[in-house]
């Protein structure tokens, strides 16, 4: 267990800034293990960027890098994101 690990709640503001929707209650389906869980429940690691991992299989779901004026968001490990509209 990494004591520096956070969870999806920690990036709620950042995600809402980008998507203009509350995202921690969105359901992400993992592209590796197929588990569907709330974005708020993902495991979040901060380094030079942010990596959000599946709490069930540790697959990297989303990667985020910022440089102050731009943001690169990769969804390489996510099959779907379900947002209530």
């Amino acid at each position, binding site marked *: *267990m*990494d*004591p*520096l*690990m*956070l*969870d*999806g*709640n*920690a990036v*709620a*503001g950042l995600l*809402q*800034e980008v998507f*203009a*929707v*509350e995202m*921690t*209650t969105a359901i992400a389906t993992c592209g590796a293990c197929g588990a569907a869980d*709330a*974005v*708020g*429940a993902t495991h979040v690691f*901060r380094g030079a960027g942010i990596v959000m991992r599946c709490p069930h299989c540790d697959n990297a779901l989303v990667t985020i890098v910022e440089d102050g004026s731009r943001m690169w968001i990769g969804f390489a490990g996510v099959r779907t994101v379900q*947002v*209530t*509209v």
Partner: protein
Amino acid sequence: MAGTAVLGRLTWRAAELVDIVVETPRVKTLGFDVPGWPGHRAGQHVDIRLTAEDGYQAQRSYSIASAPDGTRLELTVELVDDGEVSPYLTEELRAGDRIELRGPVGGYFVWEPAQGGPLLLVAGGSGVAPLMAMIRARDAVGSDAETRLLVSSRGWDDVIYRDELERRAGDRLAVVHTLTRSQPSDWTGYARRVDAEMLAEVGPGPGARPLVYVCGPTPFVETVAEALVGLGHEPQAIKTERFGPTGG
């Protein structure tokens, strides 16, 4: 409103510090007035942004500790010695000063009175802040949701909201403390880290299908969540919020 998308980009707002309450030697509650505040739900947080004269910015998230109350907002901040933001908030900021914040953010670690109970709330240190918002919101609307709060603190003088919790405790709200490092000489309560046996004793058990909220430092949350699942609680009913040791 739970589960419904809330549209709207976040905007930074000016918040004026109105009052300061010293909770423990290392923890203060800051009361802000935030004109235009749209209201919040218990468990949500705000992002705070400080800007230095040279333009350097530092940003942190803090849970909202107060129940929804107009444009007033309370944040409980623990001093992290080598932190960038918490020393400023707890030692430099004075009534009348302004900071920037945005929110409310988050929707996952949220309890609304309409969800009812029973509730099992488990806090490590200043992780009690969003759980206190839930208890205050519960009391504000007169909810009778059966609630058990288990708070882990280092010592009796480190217990945040100690007097208020004692005052609010009653038939439908049980407050249980564990003191992990030092205990008063006449202490008869728990004196160890939270474990499965303690969680089973505090209850309610999985048969009562409680909604469980766990907030604290990452190792604390991991241990508690694992123990709860081991006791038979539905993983989906356990909501967690972790804050890292460098939150400062």
